[in-house]
C-alpha cells in the first residue's frame, strides 16, 4: 500500500510566518533559519516575566495555526453579518439571559418561560421575528420604511429588564458564557442591535480559538504528516456550521472551544505524559466546560476516563508519584459539580438540579426504552427495539442531511438533491479514512487507550443528546433533538478524519486529495452562505 509522504516535523514555523501568508513578505516564505532563531529567542524569553513567557508560548505556535484561526475568525464574522438579528437558533433567549444577568446581577430562574423585556419585544417586532423564524418563505425586513420603524424601535428607550425571571430555553444553562457576554452587552450602550452584533463577535473569537486548538490537536495526534493535519484544521476553520454558530449568540460556540482545547490537552498528555501544568490546564478546562453548557456532562465522562487511563499508565511506568497529576486534574474538574450539588442540598433544591429530571427517567424502568431511543436517534433500529422514528432513516434524514446544511431557525436547508450528491464526497472521505486506519492498525493498537477515550467522549456526547431528546420528545411531549450543532464538540475529530483521509489517498495522490478537500469545504461554506442569503434577502 502506498504511503503518504512523511515529512520532517514543522514545529519550527512560528507566528512570524503569518506575515508571508497575509502578504507581508513578497516571496511568501521566510528564510529557513528564521523559525529556529525565533524558537531560541522564545526559549531565552522564558522565565523573564509572565508577559514575555506568554509571548514565548504564543511564539511556539506554528504560523499555519494562526492562519487557520484567522480564517475561522473571518468566516464566522461573515456569518455574523449574514444572519439577521435574532435569527440564530435560540438567540433571543440567550440574549435575554445576558440582559437579565447585566440588569439584575442574578441568574434567571423558573421553568423556562420567558417574557422578553419591552425593549427586546419591540425590536423583535421591528424585525418581524415571529413571522420570519421557522418560515423559509418569509424574508427579513426589506423596505426603507421597515428599517425606519426598526430604528425608532431601537431608540424607543423602553425598559430592557425582562418581565419574568426566566430566559426561555437558556434558563437552566450555567452562567460562564453569559457572564462573558455581559462585556460586549455593556459596550453596546443602549442600542440592542449593536449589543447583539458585539456579542456575536465574542462568538467569532471562540470560533477562531476552536480552529486554533483543533490545529494543535491534529499536529499533536497525527505528527508524522504535519501538512495533512493542517488540511484537517483548515477544513474545520471553513466548516459552515461552525461559522454559523460562532457568528450568532450561542453558548455552543464556547463549548466547541473548550472541547477542542480538551482534545488538545488529552492528545498531549497521551503523547508526552501528563505533567502537573497540563493536569492543571485540563482540570480548569473541565471546570470551564461545566460552567459553559450542560451538554458538557456527556463530554466530561470521556475526559475522566482519560485521566484514569493516564493514571494507570503513569503508575505502571513511574510508580505512585505519577498519580498526583491525574488526581489533581480530576479533583479540579469535579469541584464545580460537587459545589453545585452542595448548594442545591443546602437550599433544599433537587441535588442534581435540572439534571435530576433526566436522571429520574432512567430509574423508573425505562432504561431499555431510553437506550433504544438513543440508539435509533442515530442508527438503524435493531430487532426487538420499539419503533421510535417510523419512516425515517435518522442517520441520513436527520444527521447527514442537516449536517450538509441547517441554518437560521432550523428553516434553511439545501434542496434534497444536494444532500444526496454530498453522499459521494462524504463516502470518499470515509473510505480513504478507513483505508488509512487499516494501514496503520499497528500504530492504532499502540494508541488504543487514547482512541478509547475519544470514543467514550463521542458516545458520551451522543448519549447526552439521546437522553435529552428522549425526555423532550417522549416525556414532556415537545420535540426530538435533531440538530447537528450538538455534535460539533467533536469537530476536532472531523478534522482528524479529514487528515487521515488525505493520508489514505497514498503518497502520490495525498497532496491532490488535500487540495481537493480544502476546495470542497470552501465551496460548502460559500454555497451555504449563498443559501442563507437567498433565504433571508432573496
Amino acid at each position: 500500500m502506498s504511503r503518504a509522504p512523511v515529512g520532517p516535523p514543522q514545529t519550527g514555523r512560528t507566528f512570524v510566518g503569518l506575515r508571508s501568508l497575509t502578504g507581508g513578505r513578497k516571496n511568501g516564505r521566510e528564510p529557513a533559519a528564521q523559525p529556529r532563531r525565533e524558537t531560541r529567542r522564545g526559549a531565552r524569553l522564558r522565565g523573564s516575566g509572565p508577559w514575555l513567557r506568554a509571548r514565548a508560548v504564543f511564539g511556539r505556535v506554528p504560523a499555519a495555526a494562526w492562519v487557520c484561526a484567522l480564517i475561522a475568525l473571518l468566516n464566522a464574522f461573515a456569518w455574523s453579518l449574514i444572519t439577521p438579528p435574532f435569527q440564530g437558533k435560540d438567540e433571543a433567549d440567550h440574549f435575554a439571559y445576558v440582559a437579565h444577568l447585566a440588569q439584575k446581577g442574578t441568574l434567571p430562574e423558573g421553568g423556562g418561560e420567558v417574557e422578553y423585556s419591552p425593549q427586546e419585544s419591540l425590536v423583535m417586532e421591528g424585525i418581524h421575528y415571529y413571522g420570519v423564524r421557522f418560515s423559509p418563505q418569509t424574508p427579513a425586513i426589506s423596505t426603507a420604511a421597515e428599517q425606519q420603524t426598526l430604528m425608532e424601535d431601537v431608540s424607543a428607550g423602553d425598559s430592557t429588564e425582562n418581565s419574568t425571571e426566566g430566559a426561555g430555553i437558556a434558563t437552566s444553562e450555567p452562567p460562564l458564557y453569559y457572564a462573558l457576554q455581559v462585556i460586549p452587552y455593556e459596550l453596546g450602550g443602549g442600542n440592542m442591535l449593536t449589543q447583539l452584533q458585539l456579542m456575536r463577535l465574542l462568538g467569532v473569537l471562540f470560533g477562531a480559538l476552536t480552529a486554533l486548538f483543533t490545529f494543535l490537536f491534529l499536529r499533536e495526534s497525527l505528527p508524522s504528516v504535519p501538512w495533512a493535519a493542517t488540511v484537517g484544521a483548515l477544513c474545520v476553520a471553513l466548516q459552515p456550521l461552525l461559522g454559523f454558530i460562532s457568528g450568532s449568540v450561542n453558548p455552543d460556540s464556547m463549548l466547541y472551544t473548550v472541547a477542542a482545547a480538551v482534545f488538545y490537552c488529552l492528545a498531549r498528555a497521551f503523547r508526552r505524559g501528563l505533567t502537573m501544568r497540563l493536569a492543571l490546564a485540563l482540570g480548569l478546562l473541565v471546570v470551564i466546560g461545566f460552567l459553559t453548557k450542560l451538554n458538557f456532562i456527556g463530554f466530561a465522562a470521556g475526559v475522566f476516563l482519560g485521566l484514569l487511563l493516564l493514571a494507570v499508565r503513569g503508575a505502571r511506568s513511574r510508580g505512585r508519584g505519577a498519580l498526583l497529576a491525574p488526581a489533581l486534574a480530576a479533583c479540579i474538574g469535579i469541584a464545580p459539580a460537587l459545589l453545585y450539588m452542595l448548594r442545591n442540598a443546602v437550599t433544599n433544591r433537587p441535588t442534581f438540579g435540572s439534571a435530576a429530571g433526566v436522571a429520574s427517567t432512567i430509574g423508573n424502568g425505562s432504561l431499555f426504552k431510553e437506550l433504544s431511543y438513543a440508539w435509533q436517534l442515530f442508527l438503524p433500529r435493531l430487532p426487538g427495539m420499539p419503533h421510535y422514528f417510523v419512516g425515517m432513516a435518522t442517520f441520513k434524514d436527520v444527521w447527514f442531511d442537516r449536517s450538509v446544511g441547517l441554518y437560521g431557525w432550523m428553516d434553511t436547508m439545501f434542496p434534497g438533491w444536494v444532500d444526496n450528491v454530498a453522499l459521494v464526497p462524504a463516502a470518499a472521505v470515509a473510505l480513504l479514512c478507513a483505508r488509512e486506519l487499516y494501514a496503520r492498525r499497528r500504530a492504532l493498537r499502540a494508541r488504543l487507550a487514547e482512541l478509547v477515550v475519544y470514543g467514550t467522549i463521542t458516545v458520551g456526547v451522543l448519549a447526552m443528546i439521546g437522553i435529552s431528546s428522549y425526555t423532550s420528545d417522549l416525556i414532556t411531549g415537545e420535540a426530538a433533538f435533531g440538530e447537528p450543532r450538538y455534535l460539533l464538540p467533536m469537530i476536532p475529530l472531523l478534522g482528524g478524519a479529514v487528515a487521515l483521509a488525505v493520508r489514505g489517498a497514498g503518497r502520490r495522490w495525498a497532496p491532490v486529495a488535500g487540495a481537493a478537500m480544502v476546495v470542497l469545504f470552501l465551496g460548502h461554506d460559500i454555497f451555504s452562505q449563498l443559501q442563507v442569503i437567498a433565504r433571508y434577502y432573496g
Partner: protein
Amino acid sequence: MRVKVTLAVGIALLAIIGAFALTRSPPRVVAGTVGPANAVMTHLAGDISVCQAGEPLPAHVSAVRLSMWAFLGWKMHVAIYSGSQLLTQGSRAADWTSDSVTVPVAPLDRASAETTLCFAIGPNSEPALILGRNTAPPEAATVVRGADPGPGSTPEGRLPGKVDVEYLASGQGSWWSRVTSVANHMGLGRAFSGTWIALLVAALMAAVAVLAVRLTLREIR
C-alpha cells in the same frame, strides 16, 4: 504543481457552479393561499391522507408548498388530479423541518382551473401539526383512507377547513439580475444599515479564500 492544478480546477469549478446557480430564478408563488395560516387543521402523531378539491393549478408549477409544522419532518407524497386523471405528483423524504414543506412536482405546460390536491403523510410517528384556515364543511378538506390517496379514495371524515397550499413556479428574473436588490436588502434590519454590509461580507469571504489557498500551497508538498 499538482496541488496548484487541483486548486485551480476546484476553484474554477466552484465559480462555474456558482455562476450557473445565479442564472436560475428564485421560485415565486403563482397561486394559493395568501398570508400565514391562521388555524390548526389537525394535530396527530401518525399517518394521514387528505384530499381537497377546488384547487387551481397554474401552468409550469414545479413545487407545492403545504403548511404544516414539524421539528423532524416526515415522508410526503403529493398528487394532483383533474377528475380522476392524475396530472402530476411528487415526493419528499423525511428531511425537512419548520412550518412548511415544499414538495417538488413535475411541471405541466397547461393550467387547470379545477383540480383536487391529495397528500399523504407517512409512515410517520412524529407529531404533525397541519395548518390552514377554517371553511364551511362542504369546502373543507377530506381525510381519506390509504397511503396513495386520490379522488376515488374512501372518505373517513373532514378537517375543519382547507390546508394552506402555495403553488411555486420559476421566477422571472435570474439571481444575477437581483444582485443589487439582494445587496440592498442585506443592508437592512441591523444597527448599521447600507449596501456596504454585502460588500464587507464579500471582502471577508474573498480574504478567507485567498488565505486558504495560500496556506494550502505553502503547506502541502
